[in-house]
């Protein structure tokens, strides 16, 4: 008899501990405010045992502890929810303790009234169907759990609990630690395996390409043009011969060819991204995250796309500088120079539209500021804003429009202009006009050797791009949740930092619209209003003829550089 009493006492004590846990965390129970259930107690104390501690604990292990102390009372010991069976395990007097009043003064006000739906099951197939991904689940847990006081969990705890629930349902990608960004890519209902490591494959490719450069470097083309034969397509795109002095790397810096190469990489990687990217506000950042974390080599593809775009802006700016500092835009190449300027503007627009497609907090304010800038234009500003946004403010229509411009509208314009630009270069006699009186022979290189050099530059370019993309990931941020709260970075993308810095100093229309337009216009006018280089001076750096344009351009570049640095390092200067 004594023994039985003893056991009964221990069981009672455990009950009290359990009840206290429920009260202290406010995790209260139950739907049916009804007559006490006739189910007999099925109490089994092992069901209340604390999960074993794992060292070092994985995220889900921490979640298991939190679940045990805060969630289990209502959601059950294996996530079955507040079933009759689970309630029965409480013992008669505790089953409906909110009626018997055992929570006493700690009883949270109204805490049992709203549970008309019960405490739902959380673990297993077909559960948690309202959540598409782990990000949604953790925000719900963070905002609404535990039952009382709701919202008392830290963001970290919410993620731990989410990881625990997914692990128990066998949908947590192995080895993945959930965070605010990658959680949006992890589905709640379907197990997605994280991709294999992309580093070995990339290094294999890098190694092969490096070996190939050796051959490309030393095998000078011995091909000679067969008289009257028509060249193959790729060769036909190049002039039959160009002057050797002007085909040197230190004359051209290879910037034109590199720009074409980077554009090709952008087209290809962009195409690959389109297979997974979803241009809708609630899915965009998630799909970017999926490309980054779950698609095999997706992270590499995205990084290549990002870095090619950043390099393209730099390489094109250098190309422009090279053309001015060698006076190469002198007639008959003036118009082609304008085509090039147009391309630079288009690429900046493409960079900006692509940047916005991430639709996460990192781009949020750049989008707001960049488009509000349009509103400051007199007369047409408001119409232009609505045209760009597809409505009165940022929303689904905005994303679709930016997507259309980025994927097709602007890209088509670039393809047409690049083709035209290259055609004009070819028609105007190649990379540079030959100095008058240049004879045949050693002073020229053939189109075959030119193509070899281009392939070499491309291979080196791919290797550098691969290394940078493996080393430095393209930025991501958490999805935009609301357009009124200021949570993201307030910095413009780096290529517009100089404009952002200008905007700190005065009227947005003059400094943010007119001034940048004037910079481009001024550059475009140089060949038409300033003296040009003489024919005899062409093909060398710093010809005397267009000195004034050279000085002005360098000054302009320096000013933009200084403004960019100011913008980068003094956020509120």
């Amino acid at each position: 008899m004594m023994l039985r009493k003893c056991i009964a006492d221990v069981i009672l004590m455990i009950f009290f501990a359990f009840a206290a846990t429920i009260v202290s965390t406010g995790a209260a129970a139950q739907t049916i405010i009804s007559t006490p259930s006739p189910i007999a107690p099925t109490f089994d104390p092992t069901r209340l045992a604390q999960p074993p501690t794992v060292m070092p604990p994985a995220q889900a292990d921490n979640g298991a502890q939190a679940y045990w102390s805060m969630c289990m009372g209502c959601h059950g010991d294996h996530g079955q929810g507040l079933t009759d069976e689970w309630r029965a395990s409480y013992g008669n007097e505790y089953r409906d303790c909110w009626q018997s009043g055992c929570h006493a003064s700690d009883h949270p006000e109204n805490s049992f009234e709203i549970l008309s739906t019960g405490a739902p099951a959380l673990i297993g197939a077909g559960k948690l169907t309202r959540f598409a991904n782990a990000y949604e689940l953790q925000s719900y847990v963070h905002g609404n759990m535990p039952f009382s006081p709701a919202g008392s969990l830290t963001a970290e705890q919410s993620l731990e609990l989410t990881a625990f629930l997914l692990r128990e349902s066998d949908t947590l990608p192995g080895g993945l630690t959930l965070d605010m960004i990658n959680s949006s890519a992890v589905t709640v209902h379907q197990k997605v395996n994280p991709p294999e490591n992309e580093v070995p494959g990339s290094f294999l490719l890098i190694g092969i390409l490096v070996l190939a450069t050796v051959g490309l470097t030393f095998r000078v083309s011995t091909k000679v043009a067969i008289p009257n034969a028509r060249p193959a397509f790729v060769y036909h795109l190049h002039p039959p011969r160009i002057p050797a002095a002007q085909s040197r790397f230190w004359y051209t810096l290879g910037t034109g060819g590199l720009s074409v190469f980077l554009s090709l990489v952008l087209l290809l990687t962009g195409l690959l991204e389109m297979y997974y990217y979803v241009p809708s506000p609630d899915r965009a950042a998630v799909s970017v995250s999926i490309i980054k974390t779950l698609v095999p080599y997706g992270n590499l593809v995205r990084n290549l796309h990002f870095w090619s775009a950043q390099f393209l802006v730099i390489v094109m700016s250098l190309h422009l500088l090279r053309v001015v500092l060698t006076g190469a835009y002198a007639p008959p190449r003036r118009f082609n120079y304008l085509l090039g300027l147009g391309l630079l503007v288009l690429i900046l627009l493409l960079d900006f539209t692509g940047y916005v497609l991430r639709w996460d907090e990192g781009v949020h304010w750049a989008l707001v500021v960049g488009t509000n800038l349009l509103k400051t234009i007199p007369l047409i500003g408001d119409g232009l804003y609505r045209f760009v946004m597809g409505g009165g403010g940022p929303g689904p229509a905005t994303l679709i429009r930016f997507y259309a411009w980025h994927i097709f509208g602007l890209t088509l314009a670039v393809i047409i202009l690049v083709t035209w630009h290259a055609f004009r270069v070819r028609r105007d006699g190649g990379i540079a006009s030959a100095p008058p009186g240049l004879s045949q022979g050693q002073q020229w290189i053939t189109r075959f050797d030119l193509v070899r050099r281009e392939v070499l530059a491309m291979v080196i370019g791919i290797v550098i791009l691969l290394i940078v993309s493996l080393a430095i990931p393209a930025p991501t941020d958490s999805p935009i949740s609301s357009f009124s709260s200021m949570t993201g970075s307030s910095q413009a993308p780096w290529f517009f930092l100089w404009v952002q810095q200008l905007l700190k100093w005065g009227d947005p229309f003059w400094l943010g619209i007119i001034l940048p337009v004037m910079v481009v216009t001024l550059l475009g006018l140089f060949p038409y209003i300033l003296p040009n280089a003489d024919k005899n001076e062409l093909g060398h750096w710093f010809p005397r003829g267009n000195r004034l344009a050279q000085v002005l351009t360098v000054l302009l570049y320096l000013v933009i550089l200084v403004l960019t640095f100011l913008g980068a390092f003094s956020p509120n200067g």
Partner: protein
Amino acid sequence: MMKSELSRRDFMKLSTRTLLGLGAVLGLGGLIRYFSYEPGQGPPTVFDLGDAGSFPIGSRTIRGEVPAVIINQDGVFEAYSLTCTHLGCTIEKDKESIGFTCPCHGSAFDETGKVINGPAQDPLKALHVEITGENRLIVHTD
């Protein structure tokens, strides 16, 4: 009969070009019309901020969803939009004072919404506040 100064050939050329130009203008007009449809709804302009009693006398409450600061000045409600009048970023409350600063371009505003520091030119927009019969606080942002 007077010979026309315009030869037949020139006339044909001119009318062809005029027609083509007209067609282009018409096409452009159609294109502009095409883009004039706005699928986007635009942001909401009316916000129900709940029981007015939850904004006690003398309080200054920031509501991020509008975004606005709600001021209860001796029972009279005022609200200022927290959207920067410069280029539309949401301004943030200063740590030391009760003024606001914009994180994008550094405009500063005092507690009554006046500009202390550029580049913003205009004071914060005062929002229309309405108290309904059920004592709910409604803010209009337009």
